[in-house]
């Protein structure tokens, strides 16, 4: 459904800032009917890629095909196949839910009986049916997001692009939104590409693509990605991380990875974790604050690949 080939995007230099490469020769394919999560630390080029995909900016080089249409040469045809949910709300807060939906339909030339039909269909999954006359302004964050998604469904897209759609929602609402999204995707056989760095959202995805510094680091199923780290790992925390890490490497010959005040032993074979943990405790009990055996999560894979946590990525800020 999406075929990105050798995509490069360089932001032109301006008076104050030098030229900056946001996307560096990236190729990525998302098959029809897949639910793909695009992740990466801030500044990894996700947002640039997203802007290019929805046709808001032209890349420096490369090609993109969406549902067989060349996005860069025939943008109108490619755009007709997709719908976009932006991070910032793209609904008019001063208008009612119904007015927002009607306006969106007008933009796409949907009217009359066709509109009534599509409206019922698009609203079927929501909690909005009794609140159509209310202004979007007074809806809760979760409901406002439902309006956005409903709006997108009106055009019966084959591809849905979402840019961190759950930003600002509480965990329960976020979960509900993503679950609904999965149901819709399955029911309508949509292809979904969603950027996110909330890894609980990625566990149910078909594919997780991880970007860093404009390059694609990984693109695989969540299971396969977790598999890269083995099935278990030992994570310990200490106040003298650096010294302890050096000693573990020297004394035990184990491969370690330091992350903040954590030391991770990621490549432990199955069943090996417990003996390692015991050995570590035996030798360095005094220096260890806490120690645990963990099943790798997608967040751990992210840390492994990008060398930072989602929280770090958030704290780093920027785009």
């Amino acid at each position, binding site marked *: 459904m999406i075929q990105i080939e050798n995509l490069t*995007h360089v932001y*032109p230099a301006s008076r104050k800032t030098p030229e900056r490469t946001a996307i560096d020769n990236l190729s990525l394919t998302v098959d029809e009917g897949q639910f793909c999560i695009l992740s990466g630390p801030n500044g990894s080029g996700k947002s640039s890629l997203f*802007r290019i995909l929805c046709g*808001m900016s032209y890349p420096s080089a490369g090609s993109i095909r969406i549902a067989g249409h060349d996005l860069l040469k025939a943008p109108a045809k490619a*755009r007709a196949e997709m719908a976009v949910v932006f991070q*910032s709300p*793209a609904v008019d807060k001063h208008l009612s839910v119904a007015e927002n939906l009607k306006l969106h339909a007008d933009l796409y030339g949907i009217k009359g009986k066709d509109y009534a039909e599509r409206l019922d269909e698009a609203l079927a999954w929501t909690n909005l049916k009794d609140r159509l006359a209310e202004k979007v302004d007074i809806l809760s964050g979760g409901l406002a997001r439902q309006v956005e998604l409903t709006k997108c469904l009106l055009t019966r897209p084959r591809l849905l692009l979402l840019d961190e759609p759950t930003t600002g929602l509480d965990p329960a609402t976020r979960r509900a939104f993503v679950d609904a999204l999965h149901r819709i995707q399955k029911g309508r056989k949509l292809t979904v590409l969603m950027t996110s760095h909330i890894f609980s959202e990625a566990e149910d995805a078909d594919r997780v693509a991880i970007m860093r510094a404009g390059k694609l680091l990984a693109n695989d199923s969540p299971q396969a990605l977790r598999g890269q780290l083995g099935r278990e790992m030992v994570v310990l925390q200490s106040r003298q991380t650096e010294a302890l890490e050096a000693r573990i490497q020297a004394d035990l010959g184990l491969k370690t990875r330091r992350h903040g005040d954590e030391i991770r032993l990621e490549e432990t074979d199955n069943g090996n974790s417990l003996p390692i943990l015991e050995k570590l405790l035996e030798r360095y009990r005094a220096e260890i604050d806490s120690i645990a055996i963990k099943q790798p999560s997608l967040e751990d894979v992210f840390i492994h690949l990008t060398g930072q946590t989602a929280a770090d990525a958030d704290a780093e800020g920027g785009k």
Partner: protein
Amino acid sequence: MFSVAIALARREFIRFMRQPHRVIGTVAQPILFWLFLGSGFNSSFRAPGMEGVSYLEYFYPGVMLMMMLFASIFSSITIIEDRDAGFLQSVLVAPVSRMAIVLGKVMGGVSIAMVQTLIFTIAAPFLGLHLGLGSLLLLVISYVLASTGFAAMGFFFAWSMRSSSGFHAIMMVFLMPLWMLSGALFPVENAPMWLHAVMTVNPVAHALVLMRGPFYMEPLQLIENSRWLLALAVTILWGAAFLLGSMSRVEKREKGAALKV
């Protein structure tokens, strides 16, 4: 294209009506200006060739232009708000023509200006100005043309602006002076040479001539009056130029830098 533009314009209009402060502000301010300035200058105003015209009457079409100017400024500011809030993104991604996006905003601004100026036209008989059906028609046409010019110009300047305070600055140093030097406040004839020259090339001055015409001349006279026809041509050109200019601004997409090989 037009159905999309009308849908977008309707949104502008609904939004305007739902913000009572905006309605009051844009209607009341020009009227207060008119009443205060008009009454104050009334005794000292003597325009050459316009003997018997009170300042209240002289200033009257100028206030109409002011209403259009304000309507256009406010609707242009909503471009910046739309971009900030995120609404604009969904319009830009939709498969709609770029002209429809421009026309939607401009028609929204024009329709708001029309409501105000038409209400204000009710004052004409009280000033001793009498309008026949033909004159009224020409008047409405000139309202539409003049406010299109203003709205399109506002759009053109606001499109690349990222902050509404920046737009205020542009408005104060550019849009307001265009209005002040249009002959709305004082007649062109008495002004010093340099000012006279500025006023001749100012499209708003021509829009004022266009609007003043129907109050003082019969429709048939106007159609043969070369000064009025010139004003008509300039006003149409003014609107068209800024509509096209705005469209090319909307069309422009952010582009990646070319790669060095």
